[in-house]
């Protein structure tokens, strides 16, 4: 990596034309993806993301540039190009401080485990899915490993390094019967190395995914209707992520593009809703020790008993909003300028029991597993797909249904949450937004939404 003195020189060069903030982000990421298809190791791809991103801010105006040529000459050329956007008296950079120690608690980093051991594990899991049922025609497992080393420094004296290790195991099964094909998926991920397999029950996940694909073969297409929806714990939290998490990011709030603008202290949901975004949950997929602006991550209270308590804020939007950053600045890589993003976002556990919520629902949909979703922050409209769902009839889970798509408004749905169970769990996903695709946890206990629009292709023709 580049010497501290050189970085200081570049930061000072950057401030020569009036910029009042300069930042350099350097990254060297190693990744490895092993893919097993029905027991065969079919591909192993090695990758490396490497380069520097430089950001200059004057007032609220920002310029950003990046390159994978890390020679001093090239970086200086980039700095000179960038600072040409600004005019003003030169400023001086604060001398760079000492890097604070970051948490490194990885037990089995990528390098310490052989390709053979990893491959063997994936082959066993793939075969477990494949052999579950003769109707499973394809069983794919993948191990995705990323080790991101970063250094971020800025003209305010921040000088911080961090090493982030992310490991994800992907399970996918395809079932086929009478020409009909259905697929199921699960992708647990952790801020860990190979020890992820010590904390997840991989065998159970493999069996569950295979079972889910088989169940979908016999599921009926759901008939479109409005009804109560019970969203199960774990990945069910994607509803909160899409409908409320994104509109609470400063990216939307600073531009006035969120239904939650100016609502801090106001009631935005029912009394039983309390929610956090936590950047520092040990071992969590959405974790960072320091954020991508070099600030220590923290636990941010978003909603307490239905009252809005705060937003997720990065440095630049903090200036715009006149609020303090919350350790939420993230970016996919040096190819993106950082902005406010989520880490591990979840609805806090309530007092209800899962069984009681089902028992007390006369008619509705139990969304056991959700797929992905989208939200348009300006309108607050969101959608998300149900991967595995069951009808609830007279307080009992009856038939499996497929093809359900839930839609709604972020500002309505929080008020419509009428039951919150005590079984908080996290689910993992990749979240795409302005600063790229990043690992995040979504989480919640089982909740019930009193009414939602459910789309699907079933019903009378």
């Amino acid at each position, binding site marked *: 990596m580049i010497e501290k003195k050189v970085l200081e020189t570049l930061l000072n060069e950057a401030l020569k034309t009036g910029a009042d903030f300069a930042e350099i982000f350097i990254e060297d990421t190693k990744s490895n993806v092993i893919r097993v*298809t029905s027991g*065969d*190791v*079919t*591909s*192993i*791809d*090695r*990758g*490396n993301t*490497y*380069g520097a991103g430089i950001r200059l801010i004057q007032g609220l*105006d*920002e*310029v*950003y*540039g*990046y390159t*994978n*040529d890390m020679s001093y000459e090239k970086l200086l050329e980039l700095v000179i*190009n960038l600072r040409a956007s600004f005019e003003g008296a030169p400023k001086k950079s604060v001398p760079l401080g000492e890097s604070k120690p970051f948490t490194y608690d990885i037990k089995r980093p990528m390098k310490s485990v052989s*390709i053979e051991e990893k*491959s063997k594990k994936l082959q066993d899991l793939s075969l477990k899915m494949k052999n579950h049922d003769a109707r499973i*025609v*394809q069983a794919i497992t993948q191990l995705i490993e990323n080790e991101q080393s970063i250094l971020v420094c800025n003209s305010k004296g921040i000088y911080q390094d961090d090493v982030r290790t992310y490991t994800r195991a992907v399970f996918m099964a*395809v079932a*086929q019967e009478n020409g*009909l*094909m259905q*697929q199921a998926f699960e992708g647990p991920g952790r801020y860990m190395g190979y020890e992820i397999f010590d904390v997840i029950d991989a065998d159970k996940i493999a069996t569950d995914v295979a079972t889910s694909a088989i169940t979908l073969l016999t599921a009926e*297409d759901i*008939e*479109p*209707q*409005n009804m109560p929806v019970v969203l199960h714990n774990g990945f069910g939290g994607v509803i909160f992520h899409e409908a409320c998490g994104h509109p609470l990011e400063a990216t939307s709030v600073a*531009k*006035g593009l969120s239904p939650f603008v100016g609502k801090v202290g106001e009631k935005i949901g029912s009394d039983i809703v309390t929610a956090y975004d936590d950047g520092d949950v040990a071992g969590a997929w959405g974790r960072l020790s320091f954020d991508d602006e070099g600030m220590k991550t923290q636990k941010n209270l978003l909603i307490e008993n239905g009252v809005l308590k705060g937003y997720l804020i990065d440095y630049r939007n903090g200036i715009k909003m006149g609020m303090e950053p919350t350790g939420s600045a993230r970016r996919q890589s040096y*190819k993106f*300028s950082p902005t406010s993003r989520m880490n591990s976002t979840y609805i806090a556990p309530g007092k209800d029991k899962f069984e009681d919520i089902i028992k007390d629902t006369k008619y509705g949909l139990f969304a056991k597993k959700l*797929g992905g*979703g*989208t939200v*348009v922050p*300006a*309108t607050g*409209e969101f*959608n*998300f*797909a149900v991967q595995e769902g069951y009808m609830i009839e007279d307080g009992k889970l009856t038939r499996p249904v*497929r093809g*359900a*798509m839930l*839609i709604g408004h972020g500002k309505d749905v929080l008020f419509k949450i009428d039951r919150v169970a005590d079984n908080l769990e996290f689910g993992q996903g990749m979240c795409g937004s302005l600063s790229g695709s990043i690992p995040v946890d979504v989480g919640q206990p089982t909740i019930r939404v009193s009414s939602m*629009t459910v*789309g*699907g*292709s*079933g*019903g009378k*023709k």
Partner: protein
Amino acid sequence: MYQSWILLGKEKGITDLEVFAVRNKSLKLSVYEGKVDQHVQSDVEVVTIRGIVENKLSTIRFENLSQTNVSEMLDQLILNAKALTVVEPAIIYEGSKSYPEVKDELFDFGSVPVIDKINLLKNLESKILENKKVKQVQSTQYQEIDTETTLVNSKGLNLSRHNTYAYAYAIGVFAENEDIQTAYDVKLAKTFDEFDADKMAQKTIDIGVKKLGGKSIPSGHYKTVFSNEMFADLLSVFTSIFSGESAYRNMTSLKDKVGKEIADKRFNLIDDPLFKDALFKMPFDDEGVACSKRYVIENGVFKGFNHNLKTAAIFKESPTGNGFHGSIAPTNLYLEPGQKSFDEMISTIKEGVYITDLVGLHAGVKQVSGDFSLQASGFKIKDGKLDHAVKMIVISGNFFKAINDIDEIGSDLKFTIQGVGSPSVSFKSLVVGGE
């Protein structure tokens, strides 16, 4: 540099290898409330090396181009290749007999002063804001991309291609009473002159104003018309079903359908790497295979899978020049337009829905089964004309059933930024989830 890496790889014991280097230079600008909000310039070269060891092929991809790193990565390639348990055709290509020539002149967007590009966005923003129903312009964006691709391998192949293009758009936020809608229109361009702030603003305003006052409609079965862009978007998420890799992996229900009728007779799906209006023209794919025009579906009959070198060898067919991004992808895939204009198409529809927006394509589509269920908005069609705006509905169906259930294919072919093109298409019946 590339040749020396090939030599180094050979020395390390790699039987054959290929360097595929992509250098991307880009400028991205965004204007918000009359000021530059985002200004991003970049210059990045990404190198992919495919190498064969013990008849097995593995891939490394890197951005640190230092000799030390390249050497380490090549060692890793060897380890990874050896760990593969399945022996599949591993091919480094000696080259096609001939390659098509791309005659387009490349416009140098870098020669236009940055201030002109900023002004384009400022004009676009202010022109949109002139409309009274516009609450704000959420963002504007201009991006120009210059891509140089080089392919060099140990079989003596040495190819290169170069492309430049730019695009610009603004997202307007429209409001009327309690209703808020966003609208945008992406303008793609091969020269800077093609950007016309007045026209672009008018287009965005037209789209946005019409969307206001939308309401849901009762759930049920409706005759459904997809706008050209929306059907192109739907097609683009289904391209994997035509991939030879999906066929080999049992991940497409078209596996045993080659030569069989899978769609309405008027359905012609074409992959044309050199299509005249396309943004990206491809003389060769990422494995050095010459690209050529082919029918994927002709008169409703499935003509065969898109192949890269590996899947072509597995199926004992010729590679189709579709080896892209380490996998298989179409070049410029488009649905051949029919005769009817949009107005003629809807003139016979007594009651139906016209879809102009689909949200959540990454989540609501199952490529394998063909099932889709998507948040949508658009317009109600009544007595042959567009009636009120429709929002917050879910449109559901099955892709494979739908392409057999086509009412009309329009004449208004349009390509999206994903490189997929379609005219407007109407279907006899799809399910709408609404009130």
